[in-house]
């Protein structure tokens, strides 16, 4: 995990618009995008497909409750 990602409190949301034929393709592309970006624990928070594509909010979790949070052990804390 990079230094900056360690400082994310819990998750990274990607807000974008994916050009796709239907919602199913939009979902597949959403998860593929997160995978390509290196997020191992990704989920789709919101998706709405209309004609040209899908408005999506995709989430990559860095920490979930119960994990050991690296930002907690930051040296200057």
């Amino acid at each position, binding site marked *: 995990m990079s230094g900056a990602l360690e400082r994310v409190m819990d998750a990274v949301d990607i*807000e*974008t*618009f994916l050009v796709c*034929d*239907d919602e199913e393709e939009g979902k597949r592309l959403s998860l593929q995008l997160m995978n390509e970006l290196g997020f191992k624990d990704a989920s789709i928070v919101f998706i*709405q497909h*209309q*004609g*040209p*594509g899908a*408005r999506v909010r995709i989430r990559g979790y860095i920490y979930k409750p119960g994990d050991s949070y690296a930002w907690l052990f930051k040296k200057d804390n």
Partner: protein
Amino acid sequence: MTVQKKKVLLAPLDPVHDIGLKMIKRGLDQAEHDTILLPPDYSPEEIIKTAMDNDVDVILISRTLGYRVAEILGSFIDLAEASGIRERVRIGIGGMAIRPELAAELGFDAGFGPGTTVEEAVAFVEGREYVKEDVSRSKFKKDMTEKYDYTFKNKRIENLLNAIVDGIIDYVKNKTTPGVERAKIRERMLESTDETEVLKLKKEYARLCDNVVKVYYDSGALKEKTRHLTAEELKALETYLEKLKLRINPLKLQHADKNPMVFIQYGTGCPFMDIAHIKTCEAWGADGVVHFDPSWGARTEGFFEGYITHEEDGSVITYENLRIIKDALMPSTLWQVRAHRGLNTPETVLLAGKVGADLTKINIAYGSLGGGTDPERLTVDAVAAIKYAARFDMPFDVVTNEELCGVPAHKAFAGMLIVTMLGLRLGAKPILQPLFCYSPEVMISGQMRDNYVDFNAAKISALRSILNAPIWCGAPIGFLTQTEDRVQSSLSTALHASLASVLGVDGISIASADEAYSGGPISVAARIDTLRATQSAFRFFGHAEITPTRNSEIWASQIVEGIESTLDSVAKNGNFVDALYRGLLGSRGEGAYPGRAGRGTVTSL
């Protein structure tokens, strides 16, 4: 077709939530099916037993909580199989925690996620395919001016406007400009089928252009940061649009009849990206789109030709660029091409009319005091432009963005009313476009210290007390109240849209959630956000009212008094163009500077 009556068991497999099932029960009852609704918190065993005891045809389960959802629903299906009812009973599952793929994976016959309609659930019970309403068939172009007769209720203002407009019509008689002449030549070029004549006309046209455009007509070289779109790109666009046409079923933003038409503004620089944004906005319910051209285009004499893309804000106006944008629009989408400032206003309106635009935008006062065009030049050009608007039956809005420079609303409105009267006298259909935003005037004077409602309401009330004309709030609504945060920005836009709707205006122009961001082009996601927010706001208020405070009435009266006194001073001055130079419709001290582009280019015929 007769639908067979079904016996349906509705059961919330959830500790508390059953609202969705109650709504579906109502829909099923209305469709005359027999329904049994169980209370929440029944166990899977109790639900299956009720289904068996009542010999039901369909079970509809709901589940809102996501906690252990797969495990609970999986065991429900196992139990249904073990009891022997699975083969003859169709089982559907819905609720916030449900996704169709999860439902299918667990063995349900259907899964209804968030956003499912009652009609969808009824269709499942009746065993028929659900066909989503095709909004595109019920959407049609509206004429914003249709229900207005332009009767003046304030006769003193009407008389003053008539006197001022008499002077303008007299002033422009026997005067012309390179812009007026180019429009005439362009029309002949578009109508000619004789190539030799067209070449001759092009030379004539080029002589009336600035050097950067002349070079294009001489050698084909374009301005820096612009390029021609390739044949390959044009072909790919055609294919993209053909495919897209088949799957566009737009949303509708309006919830109540009184909700105004919603316009978005585009001008990414590239006609292809513009089209991609327009199609997305159409899909998310926009009723109209407004073309923004580059600011350098307004300061340059003459237009290029062909399909041209540009690397900075504003999309280049050419006949071809306008044509591909027009061809990409849904038949119900209103399309406006702005011609409110600059050195090409008559030709812009001509091209817009020839291509088939529905609306244009013209205002001498704003264009010359806040838009950088010389007042005399724009007065002569605007009269020609308004005549084209009348000829092509294209209503035009009279935008008052000089308020953003600091000009007080009453002076901006006086200028707007002069151009409105000029439009009416020349046979056109003007639309009032007051700013609906946080203007410098109120920042300094404090009318919006408490709320954004009163002063905006005062403006609409003042205009309504003067004449019966359409009102289209601009541009964009909520300007200077939005921040770079998309949630705050979308909310602010939606609240202004609600206020405009409650005040009964005919149209609004909305920004994207990127309105306050100046670091780069607007993203399409940011456009969707404000459209969705506006739709939610219309749904929230319906026919409910917003009550301004007493200040609104006081300020409305002050605005009307200010308009009268401004018009009085312009009429007494005797010359509208001179009044613009002298600051009677907005002074240098207020932030209005008479433009210099095109100064000294008006000639006598």
